[in-house]
């Protein structure tokens, strides 16, 4: 009768204690780090200290010592990559913030089970809108505060439009949103490429360079730094382009947390995501919620675009978002759609990618090394979710009492 039972039987878990879930995740992460560590040790190996005269146990001890040294070296490089100086710390915090904002942006849609993987394009549209304002409005004599406001609104609107198009088609004709948003990314990329040539500077370079860097319109449309806004309060942050962005993202993070978990909108969208039937039964307008939520998603992506172009990089090019729109999808999912966990996840990914790229330069590897490490870590964490959601039973006593012949 044993043939009636598969070797492993998988059932859905009911509740899992939070500490068990945490333990599984921590274990997965530790395993991922171990694999990454070994991988790093392998590629940065500087030869063993074992000598010909050693016995086998001695060789083993020597090997372990070498391994520890190698891993220690690696850990140091990785740590320094994000913390070695004030400037580097700021940079790390800033890249964390941008990734976090994009992750926050896709989250409302995900909570609604709308697979928006178009954050890249939506953010890029935000960049484009900012750059457009910075270029076209200069010389108009607009006061700074108004310029910033216009840039803000334009970026948000641009991101929103890019997000609403797929949402409308999803809501009305049920067009597959994953594929739709994916395609929108590349259209945005080409649109930006187009404008890069149109506004190229210097002529013939095919690039825009830093917008309004000097001359008559110096810093026109640039977001001010914190010390410019509050000269009395924060003089020590003079010339720090990062802080304002970080503060804005932090505020968005807190607001979004409350929006998702405490507001009527947030409640509605998670009902739509979990059970469309129940939503209809309660009189929730499913189509409108789909569109409204994507408007929010797109607006936040647009904001991220503005922070990049008007806030920090002051330029425009098709790779400005640099794949962070895709990474954000993973961050949001890995964080279980919780804004505060996302802070940690985006810091982690920024930290790792800094570390890996420094490893690469220090040990003469190349920068793509960080992608491999990121991939490995994500694989482990994705895999561990299975053990949180399902329980695996091995074939055992479960079959007794089923004999019928």
């Amino acid at each position, binding site marked *: 009768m044993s043939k009636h039972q598969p070797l492993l039987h998988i059932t859905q878990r009911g509740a899992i204690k939070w500490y068990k879930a945490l333990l599984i995740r921590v274990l997965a992460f530790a395993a991922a780090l171990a694999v990454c560590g070994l991988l790093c040790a392998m590629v940065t190996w500087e030869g063993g200290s074992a000598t010909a005269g050693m016995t086998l146990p001695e060789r083993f001890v020597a090997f372990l010592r070498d391994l520890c040294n190698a891993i220690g070296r690696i850990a140091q490089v990785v740590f320094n990559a994000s913390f070695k100086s004030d400037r580097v710390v700021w940079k790390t915090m800033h890249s964390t913030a941008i990734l976090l904002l994009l992750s926050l942006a896709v989250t409302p849609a995900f909570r609604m089970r709308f697979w928006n993987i178009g954050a890249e394009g939506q953010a890029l549209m935000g960049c484009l809108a900012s750059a457009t304002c910075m270029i076209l409005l200069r010389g108009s004599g607009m006061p700074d505060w108004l310029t910033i406001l216009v840039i803000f609104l334009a970026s948000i609107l641009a991101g929103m439009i890019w997000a609403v198009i797929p949402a409308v088609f999803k809501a009305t004709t049920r067009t597959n949103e994953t594929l739709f948003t994916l395609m929108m990314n590349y259209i945005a990329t080409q649109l930006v490429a187009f404008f890069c040539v149109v506004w190229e500077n210097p002529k013939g370079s095919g690039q825009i360079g830093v917008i309004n860097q000097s001359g008559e319109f110096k810093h026109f449309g640039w977001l001010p730094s914190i010390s410019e806004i509050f000269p009395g309060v924060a003089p020590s942050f003079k010339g720090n382009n990062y802080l304002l962005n970080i503060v804005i993202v932090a505020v968005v993070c807190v607001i979004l947390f409350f929006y998702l978990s405490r507001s009527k909108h947030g409640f509605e969208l998670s009902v739509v995501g979990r059970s469309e039937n129940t939503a209809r*039964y309660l009189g929730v307008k499913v189509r409108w919620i789909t569109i409204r939520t994507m408007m929010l998603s797109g607006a936040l992506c647009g904001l991220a675009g503005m922070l990049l172009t008007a806030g920090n990089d002051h330029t425009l090019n098709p790779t400005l978002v640099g794949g962070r729109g895709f990474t954000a999808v993973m961050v949001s999912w890995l964080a279980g759609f919780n804004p505060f966990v996302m802070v940690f996840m985006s810091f982690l990914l920024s930290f790792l990618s800094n570390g890996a790229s420094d490893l690469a330069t220090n040990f003469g590897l190349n920068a793509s090394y960080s992608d491999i490490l990121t991939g490995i870590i994500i694989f482990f964490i994705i895999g561990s979710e299975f053990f949180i959601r399902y329980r695996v039973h091995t074939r055992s006593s479960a079959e007794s*009492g089923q004999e019928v012949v």
Partner: protein
Amino acid sequence: MSETIPAVSLRGITKTFGPVKANDHVDLDVYRGEILALLGENGSGKTTLMNMLSGIYFPDEGTIAIDGRPVVIDSPHTAMQLGIGMIHQHFKLVDVFTAAENVALGMPGKLDLKETARRIREICAQYGFDVDPNQKVYEMSVSEKQTVEIVKVLYRGADILILDEPTAVLTPQEAQKLFNVLHAMRCDGKAIVIITHKMHEVLAISDRVAVLRKGSYVGETRTSQTSVSDMTTRMVGHSVKLDIERKKPKNPEPRIEVSHLSVRSAEGVLKLNDVSFTANSGEILGIAGIAGSGQKELLEAIAGLQRVESGSITYCSPSGAREELIGKSPLEISRLGVGLSFVPEDRLGMGLVGSMSVTDNMMLRTYRSGHTAFTRRRQPRDIAKHVVDDLQVATPSLRTQVQQLSGGNVQKVLVGREITSAPTVLLTAYAVRGLDINSSYVIYDLLNRQKESGVAVIYVGEDLDVLIQLADRILVLCGGEVSGIVKGTKAKKKELGLMMTHVGGERI
């Protein structure tokens, strides 16, 4: 025929799901060349029993013999090899495939759709089916899909066929066609079991009828030697005294007036036909009827979830204002004070969100309250606490996801929520389905309290004993029509049973 060896012989089959005994030591024989009707109310275990024969479930106890040989049926595949084929209520077909492709699915050997199509035509010619092997399933009507399912089973060489409520989705004409086919197959020496709860079908088609009640085998007779009232008695059993206290309604006045209501399903089948009645405040209006007689459509129409073909539903508020409900959204209707606590077949599908906590499920109704953009947490938590205490919901905490609760507790959460929104009209269907006796009484008590506080309660029930003792008036639905309205105090079980099977309750 009784001299021959039965094609299928079930002995002492028992199957339990958790605390529920779905089948309790059932013995059943099916012979070749006959059509056996397996009769029983909803939840009497007919489908479970047949699922064990077709390899979907595995019995806890008991033996199965095919043609006198004991067998073990551990998968649908084994059942197929033994020549057993079951046509389920929910078809297992791939919509974008043609009939031939669906029939060929899962078969071994080289794919030859032409040959498959030829064999399908052969089978069709033999039994008088009408199937185009090259037609896509999504283009087919429900009855055509059902035919494909039957052909699929025959194609695999089945000579023991089980049909689970095959006429539920058919028009009378289509049903007649199906019966002709079944007769042809019987003459061909096949053994056929048809699961049903419709008396006239039993009489029209079967040679023998076996009755199940609450998981137990009640007995069998030749169809020619039985009558509708006899079968009804066997199916519903004898009245049981339940001791539900029923107070006299206090100044009842009309709350919901339904007149000439007709509803058609998405497939175009008439589900409600010219239904008229009035539900009064301070009384419980019971609705009896065999499953699928239009109860669901009736409640959904009142709650604004169902498209209505014609007729009107008027709400008379306690202040005397009259409002037409048809054309209003579910939200507007629930704001008027009409609460719907509908427990659907898959309890969580409508009304609750399984992956949300008890508190959040309470909030589904209340989250719009207040003028800020934020939800109030206190109110739903208080309601949840209240419901959990009041109805003795067994839950580890208010943060527990509803899908982790047992069926009965899920129902209490749903019913409890609808009641706390202080409705003036409370619609409830199958509120005690799957509940143990104690929990059922908690619900009955709750409904009675609602009634005493002046709420108009519409209660769709399955158990006639309960309906007779709980409801002030009982409206009997039969095939979407009002078969009659009986006073609770005067209702007799047998009379109700007859009304359920035939409009007006007269003999066929």
